[in-house]
C-alpha cells in the first residue's frame, strides 16, 4: 500500500461550544475516488474548509503527501495541487466564463499556454459555447460547471467537489458523471453529494459523516443498505 495523498489525524474544528468536526481520521490514496455523504450539518463542508485552509483546525493535523498543511494559507495549499469546488459556486460574477477559467489556468501556466489550457478546460467541461457570457447572468447549474472548469484547468492532483450536481439539469449531471470518471484516471477526488442516484453512478468507496465524525466507511453497495446510514439520514438516533 502506497502513501496516501491526503490524510487527517484527529482533525477537529470547534466553533465556541459547537464541535463541527470531531477527531476525524481520514485517508485517501493517490488517484482514489471517495464519496462523502451525511445529513445536513454533519460537518462535510467544514471538513473541506479545514483541508483547503479556509478554516484553521482547532486540533489535529492534515497531511498532503506526508507534509502537514493544517493551518496553512489557502493559496499555499492550492499551490501544493489541491483544487476545490465550493458548495455555493465561488466564481467571478463580473467576468466572462472564459476570463474565470483563464485566471485558474494562468496561475500555473504563463502566456500562450494558459490560453490553450483554458480552451481545453472549457471543452472538457462542455461550456465552450457560453465562454463569452458573464458568469453573473448564468443559471446555477451553469455556474457550477464554470467553477468545475476553474478547478480542472490547472490540473490539481487532488480535487475536492462539494455538491457538484446541485442545480444541474439531467444532461449536465450526465456530463458531470463522465467528467468525474475521466478525471479519476489521473486525479484523486473527494466528492460530497446528497443525491444517492448520483452517488451510485460514480462511487466505489463511501465515507459517511454524522455529527462531525466518521460514522462508517466502506463499499458503496454496503453503505447504501446500511441500517445506521439510513437512520441518520432519516433523523433517527444512530445505533
Amino acid at each position, binding site marked *: 500500500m502506497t502513501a496516501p495523498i491526503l490524510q487527517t489525524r484527529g482533525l477537529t474544528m470547534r466553533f465556541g461550544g459547537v464541535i463541527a468536526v470531531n477527531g476525524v481520521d481520514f485517508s485517501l490514496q493517490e488517484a482514489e475516488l471517495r464519496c462523502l455523504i451525511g445529513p445536513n450539518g454533519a460537518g462535510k463542508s467544514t471538513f473541506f474548509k479545514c483541508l*483547503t*485552509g*479556509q478554516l484553521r483546525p482547532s486540533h489535529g493535523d492534515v497531511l498532503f503527501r506526508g507534509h502537514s498543511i493544517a493551518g496553512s*494559507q*489557502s*493559496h*499555499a495549499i*492550492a*499551490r501544493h495541487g489541491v*483544487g*476545490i469546488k*465550493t458548495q455555493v459556486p*465561488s*466564481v*467571478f*460574477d*463580473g*467576468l466572462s466564463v472564459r*476570463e474565470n477559467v*483563464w*485566471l*485558474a489556468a*494562468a*496561475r*500555473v501556466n504563463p502566456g500562450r499556454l494558459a490560453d490553450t489550457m483554458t480552451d481545453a478546460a472549457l471543452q472538457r467541461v462542455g461550456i465552450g459555447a*457560453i465562454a*463569452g*457570457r*458573464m458568469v453573473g*447572468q448564468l443559471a446555477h447549474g451553469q455556474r457550477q460547471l464554470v467553477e468545475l472548469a*476553474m478547478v480542472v484547468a*490547472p490540473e490539481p492532483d487532488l480535487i475536492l467537489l462539494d455538491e457538484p450536481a446541485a442545480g444541474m439539469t439531467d444532461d449536465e449531471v450526465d456530463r458531470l458523471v463522465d467528467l468525474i470518471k475521466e478525471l479519476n484516471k489521473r486525479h484523486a477526488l473527494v466528492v460530497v453529494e446528497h443525491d444517492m442516484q448520483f452517488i451510485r453512478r460514480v462511487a466505489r468507496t463511501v465515507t459517511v459523516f454524522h455529527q462531525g465524525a466518521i460514522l462508517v466507511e466502506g463499499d458503496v453497495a454496503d453503505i447504501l443498505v446500511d441500517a445506521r446510514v439510513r437512520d441518520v439520514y432519516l433523523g433517527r438516533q444512530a445505533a
Partner: protein
Amino acid sequence: MSRLLPVLGNIAVLVAGLAALFGLPAFAETYVIINATIFASFAILALSLALIWGYAGILCFGQAAFFGLGGYTYAVAAINFGDTTGAAALAVALPALFAALLGYFMFWGRISDVYLGVITLTVSLILYRFVNQTAGEQWNIGEAPLGGFNGIPSTPILNWPGRPGEQLAPENIFSLAAGLLILVYFGCKALLATRFGRVVVAIRENEARVALLGYDTRRYKLAIFVVGGAVAGLSGLMFANSVFVSPTMFSLPVSGQIIIWVIIGGLGTLIGPVIGCILMQVLTNWLGTLNQVPGFGWVDPNLVLGVILMVFVLLVPKGLMALAADAVRWVVRNLPFPRRGKVPEGRKGDVRSASATGSHLESVHTSPFRRFAPPSPSGGRKSSA
C-alpha cells in the same frame, strides 16, 4: 465592430487629451492655464483612487495622505537640493514607500474593508494634524521650513532637468501635468490588461476564490495599493507646482472629494473619475464666483456639492459613464430606421449577441472588464465574502 468600440474609445480619449495638451497653451490666458493645471493634477489623483477602489476594490478613505506626502516631499527636497529633478522622483517614491508600509500591515493583518477605510482615513488625519502644527524653526527640515498651517508658500517650481534655476513656465507645467495625466491613464489601462491586472480585478470580484486558485492575494493588493500611492504622490507633485503645498492637501475635504469624483464619474471605470473630477472642479469654481452675483450670496459650494453627491448615490449610483452608455443604448434602440442584423419579431433573439453588444457599449472605457459595482449607499464596496 465589437473589438472596434474599445479601440475607438481609447482613440477618443487620446485625441481629447492631446487637443487639451496642445490647444490650451496656445489660446488660453495664464490664469486658465494654471486652473487647468490644477484640474489635471486632481484628475491624476482621481485616477489613483479609480484604480485601487474601482478595480482592486480597496476603498482607501485617505488617498489625500499620499497626495500631501508627494507635495511636501517635493517641496522640502527641492528647497534643499536646489535642483528639482531628484525632488520630483522622491515625490513619487516616498508616498509609494509609505503605501507599501501601511499596506503591508493592513493586508498581512487581513484588515476587513470597513476597517481599511477607517485606518486610511485616520492616517490622513494624523498627518493633517501633524503638519498643521509644524510652525516654528524646530520643524525645519534642512533649509525647508514646514510652516505649520501656512504650508510652504515658497514651494519651488520645477526646473528643466540638469539646469537649476531655469524654471518651467506655467504653459510648460500645464503640458507636463496634462501629458502625465494621459500617460497615467493609458498606463493604468495597460496595467489592468496584464495578468497582474486581471488577478487584481478578480480579487475585487471574489478574493476567497482567487486565494483558492493559488494566488497570494495579499501581494497583489499591496502592489496595486503601492501603485495607487505613487500615482497620488505624482498628483501631489503637480499640484505643488500649480499652487503650493499646505496642510489642506492632507485634509478630510480632499479625501472626500476624490471619492465623490469616482462615484459621480463611475466606479469601475478610469475615464469616469477623470471626467467627474474635472466637472466637479469647474462647478466648484463657478459656484465660488456665484456669491458675487446679487441675490446668490447665500449659495454655499459645499452645500451644492453635497446635494449633487446625494442625487448621484440615490439616482445614478453607477455614475456618469454608465448613464451615458444607457443613453446611447436607448437612442440606438429607438432609432426610427431598421438596423442591420435586427432580429425579426417572433424569432427568439440571440441572447448572446444581444448581451455582448450591450456590454460593449458599456465597456467602451472600462476595458478589460465590464463591471460597475454599484456603490452601496454607505459608499462601501460589494462584500466579497
